[in-house]
Protein backbone atom coordinates (compact mmCIF):
# COMPACT_ATOMS: atom_id res chain seq x y z
CA UNK A 1 0.00 0.00 0.00
CA UNK A 2 2.80 2.39 0.89
CA UNK A 3 4.56 1.64 -2.40
CA UNK A 4 1.31 2.34 -4.27
CA UNK A 5 0.90 5.63 -2.41
CA UNK A 6 4.47 6.80 -3.01
CA UNK A 7 4.69 5.67 -6.66
CA UNK A 8 1.23 7.07 -7.40
CA UNK A 9 2.02 10.43 -5.81
CA UNK A 10 5.30 10.71 -7.71
CA UNK A 11 3.57 9.80 -10.99
CA UNK A 12 0.74 12.31 -10.54
CA UNK A 13 3.12 15.09 -9.48
CA UNK A 14 5.05 14.59 -12.72
CA UNK A 15 1.80 14.46 -14.69
CA UNK A 16 0.37 17.63 -13.11
CA UNK A 17 3.57 19.57 -13.73
CA UNK A 18 3.04 18.88 -17.44
CA UNK A 19 -0.60 20.01 -17.35
CA UNK A 20 -1.15 23.59 -18.52
CA UNK A 21 -4.33 24.00 -16.44
CA UNK A 22 -2.60 22.96 -13.21
CA UNK A 23 0.42 25.11 -13.99
CA UNK A 24 -1.75 28.14 -14.62
CA UNK A 25 -3.42 27.41 -11.28
CA UNK A 26 -0.08 27.32 -9.54
CA UNK A 27 1.24 30.52 -11.08
CA UNK A 28 -1.67 32.70 -12.19
CA UNK A 29 -4.27 32.23 -9.42
CA UNK A 30 -2.01 32.98 -6.43
CA UNK A 31 -0.49 36.00 -8.21
CA UNK A 32 -3.95 37.27 -9.02
CA UNK A 33 -5.44 36.81 -5.56
CA UNK A 34 -2.37 38.13 -3.81
CA UNK A 35 -2.36 41.18 -6.13
CA UNK A 36 -6.01 41.92 -5.33
CA UNK A 37 -5.22 41.53 -1.63
CA UNK A 38 -2.10 43.75 -1.92
CA UNK A 39 -4.01 46.50 -3.74
CA UNK A 40 -6.87 46.38 -1.23
CA UNK A 41 -4.89 45.82 1.97
CA UNK A 42 -1.94 47.98 0.87
CA UNK A 43 -3.70 51.01 2.32
CA UNK A 44 -3.12 49.64 5.83
CA UNK A 45 0.64 49.82 5.23
CA UNK A 46 1.41 46.76 7.35
CA UNK A 47 4.14 44.47 5.90
CA UNK A 48 3.06 41.57 8.15
CA UNK A 49 -0.48 41.85 6.81
CA UNK A 50 0.79 41.69 3.22
CA UNK A 51 3.03 38.71 4.01
CA UNK A 52 0.10 36.95 5.61
CA UNK A 53 -2.02 37.75 2.53
CA UNK A 54 0.67 36.20 0.31
CA UNK A 55 0.56 32.98 2.32
CA UNK A 56 -3.25 33.07 2.28
CA UNK A 57 -3.23 33.44 -1.51
CA UNK A 58 -0.86 30.46 -1.80
CA UNK A 59 -3.12 28.26 0.34
CA UNK A 60 -6.04 29.49 -1.80
CA UNK A 61 -4.28 28.07 -4.86
CA UNK A 62 -3.47 24.84 -3.02
CA UNK A 63 -7.09 24.31 -2.08
CA UNK A 64 -8.30 25.21 -5.60
CA UNK A 65 -6.06 22.63 -7.21
CA UNK A 66 -7.06 19.98 -4.69
CA UNK A 67 -10.78 20.85 -4.86
CA UNK A 68 -10.87 20.66 -8.65
CA UNK A 69 -8.48 17.71 -8.89
CA UNK A 70 -10.08 15.59 -6.20
CA UNK A 71 -13.68 16.24 -7.18
CA UNK A 72 -12.80 15.32 -10.73
CA UNK A 73 -10.61 12.36 -9.74
CA UNK A 74 -13.33 9.73 -10.02
CA UNK A 75 -15.13 11.57 -12.83
CA UNK A 76 -11.94 11.54 -14.92
CA UNK A 77 -11.42 7.82 -14.26
CA UNK A 78 -15.01 7.29 -15.39
CA UNK A 79 -14.41 9.23 -18.61
CA UNK A 80 -11.16 7.39 -19.32
CA UNK A 81 -12.79 4.00 -18.64
CA UNK A 82 -10.28 3.14 -15.90
CA UNK A 83 -12.58 3.37 -12.86
CA UNK A 84 -13.59 -0.30 -13.11
CA UNK A 85 -9.92 -1.32 -13.14
CA UNK A 86 -9.18 0.79 -10.07
CA UNK A 87 -12.17 -0.62 -8.19
CA UNK A 88 -11.18 -4.17 -9.16
CA UNK A 89 -7.53 -3.65 -8.12
CA UNK A 90 -6.49 -5.60 -4.99
CA UNK A 91 -6.12 -2.53 -2.77
CA UNK A 92 -8.53 -0.05 -1.15
CA UNK A 93 -9.91 2.52 -3.59
CA UNK A 94 -8.77 5.28 -1.23
CA UNK A 95 -5.15 4.22 -1.75
CA UNK A 96 -5.58 4.51 -5.54
CA UNK A 97 -7.14 7.96 -5.26
CA UNK A 98 -5.08 9.47 -2.44
CA UNK A 99 -2.00 10.01 -4.67
CA UNK A 100 -4.12 12.20 -6.98
CA UNK A 101 -5.25 14.53 -4.20
CA UNK A 102 -1.89 14.54 -2.38
CA UNK A 103 -0.08 15.35 -5.66
CA UNK A 104 -2.48 18.25 -6.24
CA UNK A 105 -1.67 19.60 -2.80
CA UNK A 106 2.08 19.21 -3.34
CA UNK A 107 1.96 20.91 -6.77
CA UNK A 108 -0.17 23.63 -5.17
CA UNK A 109 2.63 24.24 -2.67
CA UNK A 110 4.67 25.68 -5.55
CA UNK A 111 2.26 28.61 -5.47
CA UNK A 112 3.89 29.73 -2.23
CA UNK A 113 7.05 30.41 -4.22
CA UNK A 114 5.02 32.34 -6.80
CA UNK A 115 3.22 34.58 -4.30
CA UNK A 116 6.27 35.31 -2.15
CA UNK A 117 8.42 36.12 -5.20
CA UNK A 118 5.65 38.28 -6.67
CA UNK A 119 5.05 40.09 -3.40
CA UNK A 120 8.74 40.76 -2.81
CA UNK A 121 9.54 41.91 -6.35
CA UNK A 122 6.46 43.99 -7.08
CA UNK A 123 5.03 45.10 -3.78
CA UNK A 124 8.15 45.17 -1.61
CA UNK A 125 6.80 42.68 0.91
CA UNK A 126 9.77 41.83 3.18
CA UNK A 127 10.73 38.16 2.94
CA UNK A 128 11.87 36.96 6.35
CA UNK A 129 11.12 33.58 7.90
CA UNK A 130 11.05 33.58 11.68
CA UNK A 131 11.45 29.81 12.09
CA UNK A 132 12.85 28.19 8.88
CA UNK A 133 12.69 24.63 10.27
CA UNK A 134 9.03 24.89 11.26
CA UNK A 135 8.35 26.63 7.91
CA UNK A 136 9.95 23.72 6.02
CA UNK A 137 7.83 21.21 7.95
CA UNK A 138 4.61 23.24 7.80
CA UNK A 139 4.47 23.41 3.99
CA UNK A 140 4.41 19.65 3.24
CA UNK A 141 2.15 18.96 6.24
CA UNK A 142 -0.26 21.63 4.99
CA UNK A 143 -0.17 20.22 1.43
CA UNK A 144 -0.74 16.69 2.74
CA UNK A 145 -3.63 17.70 5.03
CA UNK A 146 -5.34 19.63 2.24
CA UNK A 147 -4.81 16.63 -0.06
CA UNK A 148 -6.45 14.34 2.49
CA UNK A 149 -9.35 16.77 2.84
CA UNK A 150 -9.71 16.54 -0.95
CA UNK A 151 -9.86 12.77 -0.63
CA UNK A 152 -12.88 13.09 1.67
CA UNK A 153 -14.46 15.29 -0.97
CA UNK A 154 -13.67 12.76 -3.71
CA UNK A 155 -15.46 10.14 -1.63
CA UNK A 156 -18.45 12.41 -0.98
CA UNK A 157 -19.06 13.70 -4.49
CA UNK A 158 -18.82 10.38 -6.31
CA UNK A 159 -22.52 9.98 -6.89
CA UNK A 160 -22.89 13.51 -8.33
CA UNK A 161 -22.88 13.54 -12.11
CA UNK A 162 -20.85 16.74 -12.48
CA UNK A 163 -18.55 16.31 -9.50
CA UNK A 164 -15.83 18.56 -10.93
CA UNK A 165 -18.21 21.52 -11.08
CA UNK A 166 -19.36 20.80 -7.53
CA UNK A 167 -15.68 20.87 -6.53
CA UNK A 168 -15.22 24.21 -8.30
CA UNK A 169 -18.16 25.59 -6.31
CA UNK A 170 -16.53 24.66 -2.99
CA UNK A 171 -13.54 26.94 -3.57
CA UNK A 172 -14.89 30.26 -2.27
CA UNK A 173 -16.87 28.79 0.67
CA UNK A 174 -13.68 27.11 1.95
CA UNK A 175 -11.57 30.24 1.35
CA UNK A 176 -14.10 32.24 3.38
CA UNK A 177 -14.60 29.69 6.17
CA UNK A 178 -10.87 29.13 6.72
CA UNK A 179 -9.94 32.79 7.11
CA UNK A 180 -7.25 32.74 4.42
CA UNK A 181 -7.60 36.42 3.48
CA UNK A 182 -10.44 37.61 5.68
CA UNK A 183 -10.12 37.12 9.47
CA UNK A 184 -12.73 34.81 10.95
CA UNK A 185 -13.61 37.49 13.50
CA UNK A 186 -15.30 39.47 10.69
CA UNK A 187 -17.56 36.56 9.77
CA UNK A 188 -20.72 35.40 11.55
CA UNK A 189 -19.97 33.39 14.72
CA UNK A 190 -21.31 30.09 13.34
CA UNK A 191 -18.52 30.00 10.73
CA UNK A 192 -15.79 29.52 13.36
CA UNK A 193 -16.66 25.91 14.40
CA UNK A 194 -16.73 25.00 10.69
CA UNK A 195 -13.22 26.39 10.27
CA UNK A 196 -11.91 24.10 13.04
CA UNK A 197 -12.51 20.94 10.99
CA UNK A 198 -11.08 22.33 7.74
CA UNK A 199 -7.42 21.60 7.03
CA UNK A 200 -6.61 24.88 5.20
CA UNK A 201 -7.35 26.81 8.43
CA UNK A 202 -4.56 25.05 10.33
CA UNK A 203 -2.20 24.71 7.37
CA UNK A 204 -2.41 28.47 6.75
CA UNK A 205 -1.89 29.26 10.44
CA UNK A 206 1.08 26.86 10.64
CA UNK A 207 2.87 28.48 7.67
CA UNK A 208 1.99 32.00 8.83
CA UNK A 209 3.12 31.44 12.42
CA UNK A 210 6.34 29.77 11.25
CA UNK A 211 7.04 32.83 9.06
CA UNK A 212 5.92 35.68 11.26
CA UNK A 213 6.49 34.23 14.72
CA UNK A 214 3.98 32.39 16.86
CA UNK A 215 3.28 28.81 17.78
CA UNK A 216 3.31 26.81 14.53
CA UNK A 217 3.83 23.37 16.13
CA UNK A 218 0.34 23.20 17.60
CA UNK A 219 -1.12 24.02 14.16
CA UNK A 220 1.15 21.44 12.54
CA UNK A 221 -0.08 18.88 15.08
CA UNK A 222 -3.73 19.65 14.31
CA UNK A 223 -2.93 19.27 10.58
CA UNK A 224 -1.47 15.82 11.24
CA UNK A 225 -4.47 14.73 13.33
CA UNK A 226 -6.89 16.05 10.73
CA UNK A 227 -5.00 14.22 7.96
CA UNK A 228 -5.40 10.87 9.74
CA UNK A 229 -9.08 11.59 10.47
CA UNK A 230 -9.72 12.57 6.86
CA UNK A 231 -8.06 9.39 5.60
CA UNK A 232 -10.23 7.18 7.85
CA UNK A 233 -13.35 9.12 6.84
CA UNK A 234 -12.46 8.86 3.15
CA UNK A 235 -11.92 5.09 3.48
CA UNK A 236 -15.43 4.74 4.96
CA UNK A 237 -17.01 6.96 2.29
CA UNK A 238 -15.26 5.23 -0.58
CA UNK A 239 -16.00 1.73 0.73
CA UNK A 240 -19.66 2.68 1.05
CA UNK A 241 -19.68 4.15 -2.46
CA UNK A 242 -17.94 1.09 -3.85
CA UNK A 243 -20.45 -1.23 -2.17
CA UNK A 244 -23.44 0.75 -3.47
CA UNK A 245 -21.99 1.03 -6.97
CA UNK A 246 -21.08 -2.66 -7.14
CA UNK A 247 -24.44 -3.85 -5.82
CA UNK A 248 -26.41 -1.61 -8.21
CA UNK A 249 -23.94 -1.94 -11.08
CA UNK A 250 -23.87 1.88 -11.38
CA UNK A 251 -20.14 2.49 -11.38
CA UNK A 252 -20.38 4.45 -14.61
CA UNK A 253 -23.42 6.49 -13.53
CA UNK A 254 -24.93 6.06 -17.01
Amino acid sequence: MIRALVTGTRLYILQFTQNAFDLSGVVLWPILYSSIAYYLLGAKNDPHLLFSAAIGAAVIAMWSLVAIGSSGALENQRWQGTLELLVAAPMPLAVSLAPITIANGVVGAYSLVATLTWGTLLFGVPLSIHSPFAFAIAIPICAFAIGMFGLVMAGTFVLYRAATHLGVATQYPVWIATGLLVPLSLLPGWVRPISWVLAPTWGFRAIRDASLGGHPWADIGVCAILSISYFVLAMVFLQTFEYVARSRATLRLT
Partner: protein
Amino acid sequence: MNWLRVFFVGGLTSYRALFNWISPWVFFPTLVVYPLFQILFFAYLGRYAGVQNDDFFLIGNTFVAIAVTGFFGMGHSVANERRSQTLASILASPASRLALFLGRALPSVLTGLVVASISFTLGALILHVHVGARTAAELAFAALVSSFACTAFGLCIGALGLRGRNVTLFADSIASCMMLVSGANVPLERLPGWLQQVSAVIPLTHGIKAARELSNNGHFSAAARLLLTEVAIGVAYLLAGLALLRLFEYEGRRTATLETF
Protein backbone atom coordinates in the same frame (compact mmCIF):
# COMPACT_ATOMS: atom_id res chain seq x y z
CA MET B 1 -35.84 32.94 -44.23
CA ASN B 2 -33.25 30.16 -44.15
CA TRP B 3 -30.75 32.63 -42.64
CA LEU B 4 -33.17 33.38 -39.80
CA ARG B 5 -33.84 29.65 -39.24
CA VAL B 6 -30.12 28.94 -38.97
CA PHE B 7 -29.70 31.97 -36.69
CA PHE B 8 -32.51 31.26 -34.23
CA VAL B 9 -33.18 27.50 -34.35
CA GLY B 10 -29.65 26.42 -35.26
CA GLY B 11 -28.11 28.84 -32.78
CA LEU B 12 -30.22 27.67 -29.85
CA THR B 13 -29.81 23.98 -30.71
CA SER B 14 -26.03 24.27 -31.06
CA TYR B 15 -25.72 26.30 -27.88
CA ARG B 16 -27.71 23.75 -25.89
CA ALA B 17 -25.74 20.88 -27.35
CA LEU B 18 -22.25 22.32 -27.01
CA PHE B 19 -22.40 24.36 -23.80
CA ASN B 20 -23.02 21.71 -21.16
CA TRP B 21 -23.03 24.22 -18.30
CA ILE B 22 -26.74 24.86 -18.84
CA SER B 23 -27.49 21.40 -17.47
CA PRO B 24 -28.90 21.93 -13.94
CA TRP B 25 -26.18 19.62 -12.54
CA VAL B 26 -23.55 22.10 -13.72
CA PHE B 27 -25.51 25.37 -13.79
CA PHE B 28 -26.33 25.39 -10.08
CA PRO B 29 -22.81 24.85 -8.67
CA THR B 30 -20.96 26.83 -11.37
CA LEU B 31 -23.26 29.71 -12.19
CA VAL B 32 -25.23 30.15 -8.96
CA VAL B 33 -23.15 28.95 -5.98
CA TYR B 34 -19.72 29.99 -7.30
CA PRO B 35 -20.55 33.62 -8.20
CA LEU B 36 -22.59 34.08 -5.03
CA PHE B 37 -19.70 33.05 -2.77
CA GLN B 38 -17.32 35.10 -4.92
CA ILE B 39 -19.44 38.17 -4.16
CA LEU B 40 -19.42 37.36 -0.44
CA PHE B 41 -15.67 36.67 -0.36
CA PHE B 42 -14.73 40.00 -1.92
CA ALA B 43 -17.37 41.93 0.01
CA TYR B 44 -15.85 40.65 3.27
CA LEU B 45 -12.32 41.31 1.98
CA GLY B 46 -13.41 44.87 1.16
CA ARG B 47 -14.86 45.31 4.66
CA TYR B 48 -11.61 44.03 6.18
CA ALA B 49 -9.48 46.31 4.01
CA GLY B 50 -11.82 49.24 4.62
CA VAL B 51 -12.00 49.84 0.88
CA GLN B 52 -15.33 50.66 -0.77
CA ASN B 53 -18.72 49.34 0.35
CA ASP B 54 -20.65 46.12 -0.32
CA ASP B 55 -22.38 47.61 -3.42
CA PHE B 56 -18.98 47.99 -5.08
CA PHE B 57 -18.14 44.30 -4.77
CA LEU B 58 -21.71 43.14 -5.40
CA ILE B 59 -21.81 44.91 -8.76
CA GLY B 60 -18.22 44.09 -9.71
CA ASN B 61 -18.51 40.37 -9.11
CA THR B 62 -21.97 40.10 -10.62
CA PHE B 63 -20.42 41.44 -13.82
CA VAL B 64 -17.50 38.99 -13.53
CA ALA B 65 -20.13 36.21 -13.51
CA ILE B 66 -21.43 37.66 -16.79
CA ALA B 67 -17.91 37.49 -18.21
CA VAL B 68 -17.48 33.86 -17.18
CA THR B 69 -20.79 32.94 -18.83
CA GLY B 70 -19.97 34.85 -22.01
CA PHE B 71 -16.40 33.59 -22.38
CA PHE B 72 -17.19 29.95 -21.64
CA GLY B 73 -20.63 29.91 -23.30
CA MET B 74 -19.50 31.33 -26.59
CA GLY B 75 -16.05 29.72 -26.39
CA HIS B 76 -17.46 26.25 -25.85
CA SER B 77 -20.27 26.58 -28.36
CA VAL B 78 -17.75 27.26 -31.13
CA ALA B 79 -14.66 25.33 -30.06
CA ASN B 80 -16.55 22.20 -28.99
CA GLU B 81 -17.53 21.62 -32.64
CA ARG B 82 -13.94 20.54 -33.11
CA ARG B 83 -13.89 18.41 -29.98
CA SER B 84 -17.08 16.61 -30.99
CA GLN B 85 -15.71 16.08 -34.52
CA THR B 86 -18.54 18.02 -36.19
CA LEU B 87 -16.52 21.02 -37.32
CA ALA B 88 -15.80 19.66 -40.81
CA SER B 89 -19.50 18.95 -41.44
CA ILE B 90 -20.45 22.43 -40.24
CA LEU B 91 -17.86 24.16 -42.40
CA ALA B 92 -18.75 22.04 -45.43
CA SER B 93 -22.38 23.17 -45.21
CA PRO B 94 -23.52 26.10 -47.37
CA ALA B 95 -25.04 27.89 -44.34
CA SER B 96 -24.04 31.48 -43.67
CA ARG B 97 -21.17 31.59 -41.19
CA LEU B 98 -22.61 34.79 -39.74
CA ALA B 99 -25.94 33.11 -38.98
CA LEU B 100 -24.20 29.96 -37.76
CA PHE B 101 -22.01 31.59 -35.15
CA LEU B 102 -23.99 34.71 -34.26
CA GLY B 103 -27.02 32.52 -33.60
CA ARG B 104 -25.08 30.97 -30.73
CA ALA B 105 -24.27 34.38 -29.32
CA LEU B 106 -27.90 35.30 -28.59
CA PRO B 107 -28.55 32.47 -26.05
CA SER B 108 -25.14 33.21 -24.52
CA VAL B 109 -26.04 36.88 -23.99
CA LEU B 110 -29.36 35.92 -22.39
CA THR B 111 -27.72 33.29 -20.15
CA GLY B 112 -25.33 36.00 -18.93
CA LEU B 113 -28.27 38.20 -18.01
CA VAL B 114 -30.00 35.36 -16.13
CA VAL B 115 -26.80 34.50 -14.22
CA ALA B 116 -26.28 38.17 -13.33
CA SER B 117 -29.87 38.52 -12.11
CA ILE B 118 -29.61 35.47 -9.85
CA SER B 119 -26.18 36.44 -8.46
CA PHE B 120 -27.15 40.05 -7.85
CA THR B 121 -30.48 39.23 -6.21
CA LEU B 122 -29.05 36.60 -3.86
CA GLY B 123 -25.97 38.70 -3.10
CA ALA B 124 -28.08 41.80 -2.38
CA LEU B 125 -30.35 39.81 -0.06
CA ILE B 126 -27.44 38.39 1.95
CA LEU B 127 -25.47 41.64 2.12
CA HIS B 128 -28.62 43.69 2.81
CA VAL B 129 -28.08 45.94 -0.20
CA HIS B 130 -31.29 47.70 -1.17
CA VAL B 131 -31.89 48.58 -4.82
CA GLY B 132 -35.02 50.33 -6.11
CA ALA B 133 -37.07 48.89 -8.99
CA ARG B 134 -36.00 51.59 -11.45
CA THR B 135 -32.30 51.19 -10.61
CA ALA B 136 -32.66 47.40 -10.88
CA ALA B 137 -34.08 47.77 -14.38
CA GLU B 138 -31.24 50.10 -15.38
CA LEU B 139 -28.67 47.72 -13.90
CA ALA B 140 -30.26 44.88 -15.90
CA PHE B 141 -29.78 46.94 -19.05
CA ALA B 142 -26.13 47.54 -18.18
CA ALA B 143 -25.73 43.81 -17.54
CA LEU B 144 -27.26 43.05 -20.95
CA VAL B 145 -24.80 45.39 -22.65
CA SER B 146 -21.83 43.84 -20.83
CA SER B 147 -23.12 40.37 -21.59
CA PHE B 148 -23.07 41.27 -25.28
CA ALA B 149 -19.49 42.59 -25.04
CA CYS B 150 -18.30 39.50 -23.13
CA THR B 151 -20.03 37.14 -25.55
CA ALA B 152 -18.32 38.95 -28.42
CA PHE B 153 -15.00 38.45 -26.68
CA GLY B 154 -16.01 34.81 -26.14
CA LEU B 155 -16.37 34.50 -29.92
CA CYS B 156 -12.66 35.37 -30.24
CA ILE B 157 -11.86 32.70 -27.64
CA GLY B 158 -14.02 30.19 -29.49
CA ALA B 159 -12.30 31.07 -32.76
CA LEU B 160 -8.92 30.38 -31.15
CA GLY B 161 -10.36 26.99 -30.25
CA LEU B 162 -10.37 26.14 -33.95
CA ARG B 163 -6.57 26.12 -33.75
CA GLY B 164 -5.61 25.87 -30.06
CA ARG B 165 -5.85 22.78 -27.92
CA ASN B 166 -7.55 24.05 -24.78
CA VAL B 167 -10.19 26.79 -24.84
CA THR B 168 -11.13 26.18 -21.21
CA LEU B 169 -7.66 27.10 -19.99
CA PHE B 170 -7.65 30.29 -22.05
CA ALA B 171 -11.17 31.32 -21.02
CA ASP B 172 -10.47 30.53 -17.38
CA SER B 173 -7.23 32.53 -17.31
CA ILE B 174 -8.81 35.59 -18.94
CA ALA B 175 -11.93 35.43 -16.77
CA SER B 176 -9.70 35.24 -13.68
CA CYS B 177 -7.68 38.26 -14.82
CA MET B 178 -10.96 40.18 -15.26
CA MET B 179 -11.41 40.13 -11.47
CA LEU B 180 -8.43 42.43 -11.19
CA VAL B 181 -8.07 44.28 -14.49
CA SER B 182 -11.70 45.27 -15.07
CA GLY B 183 -11.89 47.06 -11.74
CA ALA B 184 -14.40 44.54 -10.41
CA ASN B 185 -12.59 44.20 -7.09
CA VAL B 186 -9.95 46.91 -7.05
CA PRO B 187 -10.73 50.57 -7.75
CA LEU B 188 -9.12 51.33 -11.12
CA GLU B 189 -7.15 54.29 -9.79
CA ARG B 190 -5.21 51.91 -7.52
CA LEU B 191 -3.92 49.88 -10.48
CA PRO B 192 -0.65 50.76 -12.24
CA GLY B 193 -0.96 52.96 -15.34
CA TRP B 194 -0.27 50.21 -17.89
CA LEU B 195 -2.97 48.02 -16.33
CA GLN B 196 -5.44 50.90 -16.49
CA GLN B 197 -4.69 51.20 -20.20
CA VAL B 198 -5.43 47.50 -20.66
CA SER B 199 -8.65 47.82 -18.68
CA ALA B 200 -9.85 50.58 -21.01
CA VAL B 201 -9.96 48.23 -24.03
CA ILE B 202 -11.45 45.11 -22.52
CA PRO B 203 -15.12 44.27 -22.11
CA LEU B 204 -16.68 44.70 -18.66
CA THR B 205 -14.68 47.71 -17.41
CA HIS B 206 -17.09 50.32 -18.78
CA GLY B 207 -20.13 48.17 -18.01
CA ILE B 208 -19.09 47.92 -14.35
CA LYS B 209 -18.37 51.65 -14.21
CA ALA B 210 -21.78 52.40 -15.71
CA ALA B 211 -23.53 50.05 -13.28
CA ARG B 212 -21.81 51.69 -10.31
CA GLU B 213 -22.75 55.09 -11.68
CA LEU B 214 -26.38 53.99 -11.90
CA SER B 215 -26.30 52.47 -8.44
CA ASN B 216 -24.70 55.52 -6.80
CA ASN B 217 -26.30 58.45 -8.57
CA GLY B 218 -29.15 56.96 -10.53
CA HIS B 219 -28.53 59.22 -13.53
CA PHE B 220 -28.89 57.16 -16.67
CA SER B 221 -27.52 59.95 -18.85
CA ALA B 222 -24.17 59.80 -17.04
CA ALA B 223 -23.96 56.05 -17.55
CA ALA B 224 -25.14 56.12 -21.17
CA ARG B 225 -21.76 57.25 -22.50
CA LEU B 226 -20.00 54.40 -20.67
CA LEU B 227 -22.52 51.90 -21.98
CA LEU B 228 -22.01 53.18 -25.53
CA THR B 229 -18.27 52.61 -25.11
CA GLU B 230 -19.00 49.08 -23.86
CA VAL B 231 -21.15 48.44 -26.96
CA ALA B 232 -18.38 49.78 -29.21
CA ILE B 233 -15.84 47.48 -27.54
CA GLY B 234 -18.26 44.58 -27.97
CA VAL B 235 -18.72 45.34 -31.67
CA ALA B 236 -14.94 45.53 -32.15
CA TYR B 237 -14.44 42.11 -30.55
CA LEU B 238 -17.37 40.70 -32.51
CA LEU B 239 -15.77 41.78 -35.78
CA ALA B 240 -12.39 40.47 -34.60
CA GLY B 241 -14.00 37.14 -33.66
CA LEU B 242 -15.67 36.79 -37.05
CA ALA B 243 -12.40 37.65 -38.80
CA LEU B 244 -10.53 35.09 -36.68
CA LEU B 245 -13.14 32.44 -37.49
CA ARG B 246 -12.72 33.16 -41.18
CA LEU B 247 -8.93 33.09 -40.89
CA PHE B 248 -8.76 29.85 -38.90
CA GLU B 249 -11.31 28.18 -41.16
CA TYR B 250 -9.14 29.06 -44.14
CA GLU B 251 -5.97 27.88 -42.36
CA GLY B 252 -7.67 24.68 -41.20
CA ARG B 253 -8.81 23.89 -44.75
CA ARG B 254 -5.45 24.78 -46.27
CA THR B 255 -3.41 22.65 -43.90
CA ALA B 256 -6.10 19.94 -43.45
CA THR B 257 -5.93 20.35 -39.67
CA LEU B 258 -9.56 21.10 -38.87
CA GLU B 259 -9.96 18.18 -36.49
CA THR B 260 -6.44 17.51 -35.28
CA PHE B 261 -5.31 18.24 -31.73
